[in-house]
């Protein structure tokens, strides 16, 4: 009999032995080494073992009786140290074994992030039964941090949670399982996990693991400290190739094999995760099983060739239904088909290329996954079913998505009218009680009776409740991605507590994978205004000026405007501006209409450098580019003017220092004049304050752009403190209610100055608005120039590469 030695008793070699023994039971005398002190078991089922849904005994694929019955000599718990190819022997810890044919099936080693503390007791990987038992033995109630939000990490997290632990998942990318899922599906998955009590932190980079001997906490790059009793690293795997490399076999990223699974030595073969075929690595069992079949044939002298196929992924967490298959990567000519059902938490996306399906991601309803997977694998021409493809095999010829689905899906306790605290259930009740039009609903419930921005939603509730008996007046949707209006979207973000863009896209049924240039900046603003602490500003959803913190010019250069608080400057500041203008060859230096200086024509890649120079002189960004606070113009006031009644310059500076950095629906400009002669032109500003002997007249809703408007009186107050409080409260009310790109005067035209006055007259409401504004400022009042001129961030302003310097061919 030929002597066959197999190194590694894993999923691939287990399958190989079955094929060999079935086909030719007496052909080989087999010796099977395994570093783990046990034989073949179904590694992928460790997750159900961890969660308690299965026992280890249930996942053993080959037991002692099986090896004995088929004459397999088992050397379990024995790591192979060396292969001597000249003598054709394998050297194990307990002695040598000669071979005629050798199979290397050593699988992979988990990758451990080499951060400080990675070797503390309590830091483990998730690969084998010992790791699993280590997690099971942890006391309920203890705290686990799982590093890595891919397949393995999430299965570990779900299992640990079911065992009663406090679990936090840290993930470097912006959404979970980013290789298999797009942001929308990643959002749904996250929501599902959070519902189970798992804390998920994305864009979380581990700095170090702290502890004295054993794990005590994980520290993130941003300084967050997470107490932990156990740290599970699930950040990836590395093919186990040391043995093969040491034996002089040809090894690239893994052991190189041909289509017959032969290595560079004709007597040595390899199978499983430790191989590289045609430049490709393998990390899921389906291709390994194909390899095992091919290798069995090769060893038996039959013809067979391995060819990689498309793969699909599922997550083995009970209740998290996701499916992903095929390819979403680069190649022109691809088209997306997206379907969302917010009510049932379903998201499906198909990628079609040349009339063939090439990729599919699904969440919530994966019943058709295998059907789609079949279409992908077979390369079926889908042009005939293009229109209804996404509805799956059972539903050809279906109706278009219902534009009202998002509102119909809202639960009864979803708040529709924020002013009066009216929920959907109360409105439905009123409608059922006979209030069958908007006026009647307003009269009975007060919904939409105050600022009126929820009118569209109330009408949709009417339509959903009354069916055809109610025709919704057409509201202007935000853009082609949705049927909802800005007002609807704002309201639903608040009432449904939607805190990320993927959450909005999914729950409100967006038709595109990730919005467009019209809706993205609006959503980004709404989310950061409503959830300053939870939402993270997305530079990719901002117009270039706000992304680059400078105004783009028609020739692609930029303008730079530093802040000059209240229009006041110093000789030192002017000198710094002059120096910067010379150093960066600024072609135009101009005094703006906003009482400060504009440096026009700065090259994009010079921006971080000119900012650094200006910062060094104490100058910060003037936000001349932002939908945010621009300038506060002032006049000289009591300090110098013979007519001045109050310190208009001081108040202007105080307001600018309080408000700068805040984002608003459109730009916001202020001015403070020291007397009714109004030299600061305060009566045509978004907020304009005119000082008089008896106090401060606060006007709002002025403009002097395409429309010229005089301010209307909001209030007259006696003290400077009150003037600041009213102004901040007004700006915050505008931030919370206006639609994106409405200047205050446009917003006031919709909600009415009376409603704003009523709201702000309530001292408690004013205090609360100011508190919310200040909270937001703790996040957003920071100089973007300082943040972006660090060496690391400045790189983003330069070209990615300069190929003009490359030698000519």
């Amino acid at each position, binding site marked *: 009999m030929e002597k066959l030695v197999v190194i590694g008793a894993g999923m691939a070699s287990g399958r190989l032995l079955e094929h060999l023994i079935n086909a030719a039971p007496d052909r080989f005398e087999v010796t099977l080494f395994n570093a783990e002190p046990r034989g073949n078991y179904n590694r992928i089922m460790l997750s159900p073992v961890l969660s308690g849904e299965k026992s280890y005994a249930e996942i053993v694929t080959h037991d002692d009786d099986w090896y004995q019955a088929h004459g397999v000599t088992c050397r379990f718990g024995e790591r192979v140290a060396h292969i001597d190819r000249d003598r054709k022997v394998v050297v194990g810890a307990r002695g040598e074994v000669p071979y005629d044919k050798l199979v290397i099936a050593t699988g992979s080693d988990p990758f451990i992030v080499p951060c400080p503390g990675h070797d503390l007791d309590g830091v483990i990987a998730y690969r084998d039964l010992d790791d699993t038992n280590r997690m099971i033995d942890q006391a309920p109630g203890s705290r686990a941090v799982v590093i890595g939000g891919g397949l393995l990490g999430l299965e570990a997290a779900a299992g640990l949670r079911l065992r009663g632990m406090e679990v936090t998942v840290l993930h470097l990318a912006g959404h979970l399982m980013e*290789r298999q899922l797009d942001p929308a599906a990643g959002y749904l998955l996250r929501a599902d996990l959070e519902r189970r009590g798992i804390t998920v932190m994305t864009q979380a980079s581990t700095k170090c693991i702290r502890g004295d001997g054993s794990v005590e906490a994980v520290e993130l790059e941003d300084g967050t400290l997470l107490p932990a009793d156990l740290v599970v690293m699930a950040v990836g795997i590395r093919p186990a190739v040391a043995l093969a490399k040491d034996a002089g076999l040809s090894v690239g990223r893994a052991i190189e094999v041909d289509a017959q699974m032969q290595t560079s030595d004709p007597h040595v073969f390899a199978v499983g995760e430790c191989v590289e075929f045609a430049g490709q690595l393998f990390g899921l069992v389906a291709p390994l099983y194909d390899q095992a079949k091919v290798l069995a044939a090769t060893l038996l002298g039959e013809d067979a060739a391995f060819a990689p196929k498309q793969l699909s992924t599922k997550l083995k967490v009970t209740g998290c239904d996701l499916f992903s298959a095929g390819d979403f990567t680069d190649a022109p*000519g691809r088209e997306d088909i997206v379907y969302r059902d917010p009510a049932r938490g379903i998201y499906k996306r198909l990628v079609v290329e040349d009339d063939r399906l090439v990729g599919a991601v699904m969440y919530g309803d994966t019943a058709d996954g295998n059907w789609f997977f079949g279409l992908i694998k077979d390369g079926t021409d889908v042009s005939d079913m293009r229109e209804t493809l996404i509805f799956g095999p059972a539903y050809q010829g279906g109706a278009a998505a219902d534009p009202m689905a998002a509102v119909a899906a809202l639960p009864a306790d979803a708040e529709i009218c924020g002013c009066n605290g009216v929920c959907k259930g109360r409105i439905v009740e009123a409608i059922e009680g006979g209030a069958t039009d908007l006026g009647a609903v307003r009269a009975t419930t007060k919904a939409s009776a105050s600022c009126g921005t929820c009118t569209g939603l109330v009408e949709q509730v009417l339509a959903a409740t009354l069916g055809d008996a109610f025709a919704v007046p057409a509201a202007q949707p935000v853009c082609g991605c949705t049927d909802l209006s800005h007002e609807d979207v704002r309201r639903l973000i608040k009432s449904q507590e939607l805190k990320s863009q993927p959450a909005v896209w999914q729950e409100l049924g967006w038709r595109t994978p990730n919005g*467009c240039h019209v809706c993205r900046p609006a959503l980004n603003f709404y989310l950061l205004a409503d959830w300053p602490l939870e939402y993270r500003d997305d530079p990719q959803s901002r117009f270039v000026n706000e992304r680059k913190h400078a105004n783009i010019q028609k020739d692609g250069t930029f303008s730079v405007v530093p802040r000059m608080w209240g229009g006041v400057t110093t000789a030192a500041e002017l000198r710094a501006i002059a120096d910067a203008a010379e150093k960066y060859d600024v072609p135009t230096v101009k005094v703006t209409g906003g009482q400060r200086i504009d440096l026009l024509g700065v090259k994009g890649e010079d921006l971080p450098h000119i900012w650094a120079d200006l910062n060094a002189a104490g100058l910060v960004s003037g936000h001349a580019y932002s939908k945010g606070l621009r300038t506060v113009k002032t006049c000289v006031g009591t300090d110098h003017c013979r007519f001045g009644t109050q310190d208009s310059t001081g108040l202007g500076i105080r307001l600018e220092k309080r408000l700068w950095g805040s984002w608003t629906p459109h730009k916001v400009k202020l001015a403070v004049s020291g007397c009714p002669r109004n030299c600061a032109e305060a009566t045509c500003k978004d907020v304009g304050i005119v000082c008089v002997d008896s106090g401060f007249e606060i006007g709002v809703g002025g403009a002097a752009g395409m429309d010229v408007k005089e301010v209307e009186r909001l209030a007259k107050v006696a003290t400077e403190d009150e003037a600041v409080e009213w102004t901040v409260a007004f700006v915050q009310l505008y931030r919370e209610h206006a639609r994106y790109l409405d200047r205050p005067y446009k917003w006031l035209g919709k909600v009415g100055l009376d409603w704003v006055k009523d709201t702000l007259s309530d001292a408690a409401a004013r205090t609360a608005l100011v508190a919310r504004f200040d909270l937001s400022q703790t996040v957003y009042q920071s100089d973007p120039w300082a943040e972006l001129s660090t060496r690391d961030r400045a790189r983003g302003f330069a070209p990615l590469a300069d190929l003009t310097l490359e030698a000519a061919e």
Partner: protein
Amino acid sequence: MSWIDIGALDDIPERGARMVRTRAGCVALFRTGATEVFATSNTCAHKGGPLAEGIVHGRKVTCPLHNWVYSLETGEAQGADEGRIATYPVRIEDGRILIDGDAIGKRSAA
């Protein structure tokens, strides 16, 4: 084709873009997804706006100057606007972005 390494995938944020200088002019690289990158001319067919400064959505980009929208796959302007920008082959390998040097070279020779 001759593939030239121009940088790491992670140098471009998702739904973001970066610019590369070449002998054939500036080329914009758009990252439309976790592992998807497109390359086109950086110059808008309307009035030369820098496309790498635009907003990236789906497999499209909107020019920052006057909002023309281009398909990154075909280079065709979308909707009512008429115009086309050049597109170039790119690949991702081991987290690096490679661009086809021949395609850029060819254009400069023409």
